[in-house]
């Protein structure tokens, strides 16, 4: 039994790393644009389908394919932000942006259904099926590679945010939009690029997700509800919080999964509700900076 728990913890950390990647995108978008991007879930699935197409049609390796899918998703993100999110202003903006991203999610889901149908797909490669035996644990290579990829990308994001001029303007915008504008930061540009980056990381997340899970166009709902629970638990807008919360939640889920497979997902939401009862701002959330 103890062995199963250890295995669950190791799995949880590895999968949690991948979720962290997707959640960081979501929380970054929230921090800068002050919107919840409901479309994040379906974007992950879109990323998975893109990888699938590249692998199936052009026989491009999944990891190599990211060189195409990540920039593609970045462009999609920037276009969506520019066309649908930038024009929204006023006091109902919170709810309207939510609706808009929901609508975008619906449209993407419909298109994916139209093209690929409702069948489950899974990404395939030699490292998806083979596994390695380390310290008595069986670990699939894809989990290890995926985790390494997630670590690398999150580290790159950290570098971008904390060591570059652009990162400084992103953080300034997250702290105080008006002040950022006053010191000459081009808010619209920062918002568009941030949205693009937040969406672009889903290409990587989607690839790993698609290699470790079966997916269909409907999988976006399950993903977005988990991601939302993670970013709220970590504290909206907190990148470190998203990392901690994803590993915590996914590990918790995989431990519960040993005894209660059907209710493992419910634990997810129950943990969220419990944490919010004690700390309404999540683990690392600041006191609502932009109170309504």
């Amino acid at each position: 039994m103890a062995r199963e728990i250890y295995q669950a913890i190791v799995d949880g950390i590895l999968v949690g790393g991948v979720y962290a990647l997707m959640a960081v995108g979501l929380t970054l978008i929230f921090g800068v644009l002050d919107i919840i991007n409901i479309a994040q879930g379906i974007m992950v699935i879109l990323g998975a389908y893109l990888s699938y197409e590249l692998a199936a049609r052009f026989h491009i390796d999944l990891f190599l394919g990211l060189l195409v899918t990540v920039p593609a998703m970045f462009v999609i993100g920037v276009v969506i932000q520019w066309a649908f999110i930038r024009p929204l202003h006023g006091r109902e903006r919170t709810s309207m942006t939510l609706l808009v991203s929901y609508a975008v999610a619906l449209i993407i889901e419909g298109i994916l259904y139209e093209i690929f149908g409702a069948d489950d797909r899974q990404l395939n490669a030699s490292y998806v099926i083979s596994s390695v035996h380390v310290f008595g644990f069986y670990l699939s290579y894809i989990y290890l590679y995926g985790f390494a990829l997630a670590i690398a990308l999150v580290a790159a994001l950290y570098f971008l945010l904390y060591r570059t001029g652009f990162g400084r303007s992103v953080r300034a915008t997250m702290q105080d939009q008006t002040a950022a504008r006053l010191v000459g930061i081009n808010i619209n540009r920062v918002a568009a690029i941030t949205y693009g980056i937040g969406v672009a990381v889903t290409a990587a997340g989607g690839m790993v997700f698609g290699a470790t899970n079966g997916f269909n166009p409907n999988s976006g709902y399950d993903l977005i509800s988990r991601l939302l629970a993670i970013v709220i638990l970590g504290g909206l807008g907190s990148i470190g919080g998203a990392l901690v919360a994803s590993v915590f939640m996914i590990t918790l889920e995989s431990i519960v999964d040993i005894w209660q497979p059907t209710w493992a997902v419910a634990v997810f939401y129950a943990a969220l509700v419990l944490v919010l009862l004690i700390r309404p701002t999540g683990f690392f959330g600041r006191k609502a900076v932009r109170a309504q």
Partner: protein
Amino acid sequence: MSEPKGAVPTGLTSEERARREGGASRAPGGERGKQSLRLVGLVALLAVAVAFPAIFPNPVVTNYAVYAMMFVAIASAWNIFSGFSGYISLGHAVFFGSGAYALGVAARDWHVTGTAVFALMPLSAVVGALIAVPFGVIALRVRRHTFIVITIAVFFIFQLMAFNFSFTGGSTGLDAPFLPWSPQTYNNPFYYIALGCAVGAIVLAWLIRRSRFGLQLRAIKDDEDRARGLGVHAMRVKLSALVLSAAVTALVGAVWFFYLTQVQPQTGFDPLFDLLVVLMAFLGGLGTVAGPVLGALIIEPGQLYLTANTNGYISEILLGGLFLVAVLLVPRGIIPTGGEYIRRLATRGRAAIPEGVPASQRAPASPGLRSDAGATKEGDASKGAWRRAGETLP
């Protein structure tokens, strides 16, 4: 990205706002005439609604009408909580589905059959209200985005429970007791029940909107902390609105269950349901009484038509597109935007409130200034607004 605080409450209709700000002046006689005109209009609308199945006996048409009426009721109920208080709920399917399931379980376990099941309907409303209490106590502690996400999370928990508990029938769901009605007129009783729900929900919304309770809700929408400072028991007010809203939604859920004769986890707890209801309220005009009604009357038949006449995925894409168009083109909703347009037409060539000046900067909005001017009548105030618009008095 939020607007300056201290603006005149946006929860007000354009008309109310005009009255408060001393904009276009109206003689009391004209007001009364207008009111009776409006009453006549409403009675005529109600008469058309009541006569509808007689005018269009085609079951296909009445089928649309039944759904439209159910969604009028739900959108109005949603608006009572979310529209008035500003807390956007994306979890009303929780109440809708629970209402349906409560009735299905009760009818099955207590062996109620035939038309007697309609006597169980209040039970659904009670269940909806009871679920709303813990829901609200947990979710209403947080605001804005976090609140919305919590409602989504609760929604998924309920869907999961419907799938996995044994008493809900799992993924096959529940069947409603058989109703021995002829297919030709099957829709008609449901139409009247749904119409009753719709009228009830509209009247409830209208009563709340004019009441002290409604004013407190809208104060919370404008600035919750300030409302609390002024002595509004925010939690109590929000929770009461949520409970009322949930009860009506659950009741309609029960009607829907009878009408469809079955409920499954993915139809009773449907993410698209939440989205549609919010879209209806937004398209019509959030926080107005007529807005959600209009939105439901436009969207629900449209959605049914699309689903019936295209394959499901195309209708999903079109629905998403409609969504984007609605939010981008009429962000404030048809009723407020249309009302303003009509008012602008009506006041053309006469003194009108200058567009684009924030309400808080218009002097008559402040009670202090109004008392300074002594016994200023509304007509004088409108002259004042005129002068400030940069024109000279005649």
